[in-house]
């Protein structure tokens, strides 16, 4: 087993463990903090895949903004944070069963795929991922439309969220 595989296994265990804590912790602020550690684990996985830009963006967007937003939202809706009420549905077993089935189904489906256990090759040493990403985002025959639509999507999210949350009646 190579060092990279060991790092992967440790990170994967950490990520999944934290993810499990996210969905089971009773205290919602703790759940949000566990989400942070899950997302950090995912960022490490991106770094392991040499996707530097995505790894840093993961930390910037998820830990820097989305986790903060979650904690703020938890604080703004504090009443149901009390830990004495049950946090889990009565028929949680059905959810667990469904999740397990989805996992089993996904693994079963993927196993039949020919590229399942593919291994990658090392990246060329002068590989400029960020530059290529920039070019892909703005060149007319690549992703310029999604690029602009993302802007509209963010605008819609901003306007919608402002309108929904604080429309004074």
């Amino acid at each position, binding site marked *: 087993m190579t060092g*990279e595989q060991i790092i992967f296994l440790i990170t*994967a265990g950490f*990520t*999944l463990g934290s993810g499990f804590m*996210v*969905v089971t912790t009773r205290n*919602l602020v703790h759940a*949000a903090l566990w989400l942070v550690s*899950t*997302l950090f684990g*995912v960022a490490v*996985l991106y770094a392991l*895949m040499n*996707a530097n830009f*995505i790894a840093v*963006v*993961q930390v910037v*967007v*998820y830990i820097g*903004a*989305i986790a903060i*937003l*979650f904690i703020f*939202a938890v604080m*703004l*809706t504090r009443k*149901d944070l009390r830990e004495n*009420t*049950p*946090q*889990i*549905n009565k028929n949680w077993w059905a*959810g*667990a069963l*469904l*999740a397990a089935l*989805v996992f089993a189904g996904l*693994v079963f489906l*993927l196993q039949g795929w020919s590229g399942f*256990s593919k*291994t*990658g090759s090392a*990246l060329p040493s002068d*590989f400029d991922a960020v530059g*290529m*990403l920039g070019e*892909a985002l703005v060149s007319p025959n690549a992703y310029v439309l*999604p690029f602009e639509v*993302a802007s509209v*999507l*963010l605008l*819609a*999210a901003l306007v*919608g*969220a*402002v309108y*929904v*949350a*604080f*429309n004074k009646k």
Partner: protein
Amino acid sequence: MVPLSWYLILAAALFSVGLFGALVRRNAVAILLGVELMLNAVNINLVAFWRYGDVTTMTGQVFAIIVFAVAAAEVAVGLALVISVYRRRNTVVADELDMMKW
């Protein structure tokens, strides 16, 4: 080098954990936490397919970034809805939100 299958299995497991959270949590904020996990599982897959496919095609990374934008929009509007409902109904328990009967 880690084989692609490891990443795919991890992503599937993370997706299932997120799905479990989204299905069973009663608190609407916690449901959105579960959805975040699912979106991250998707992103792991996208980046893994970029890395193990043709690295000179940036499709996987571009899609991953767009998923970031979608996740941001989803969280922004979702939590705004939760806050809005909380201000009117004083609850964020999803089972108790039954205003829309029809």
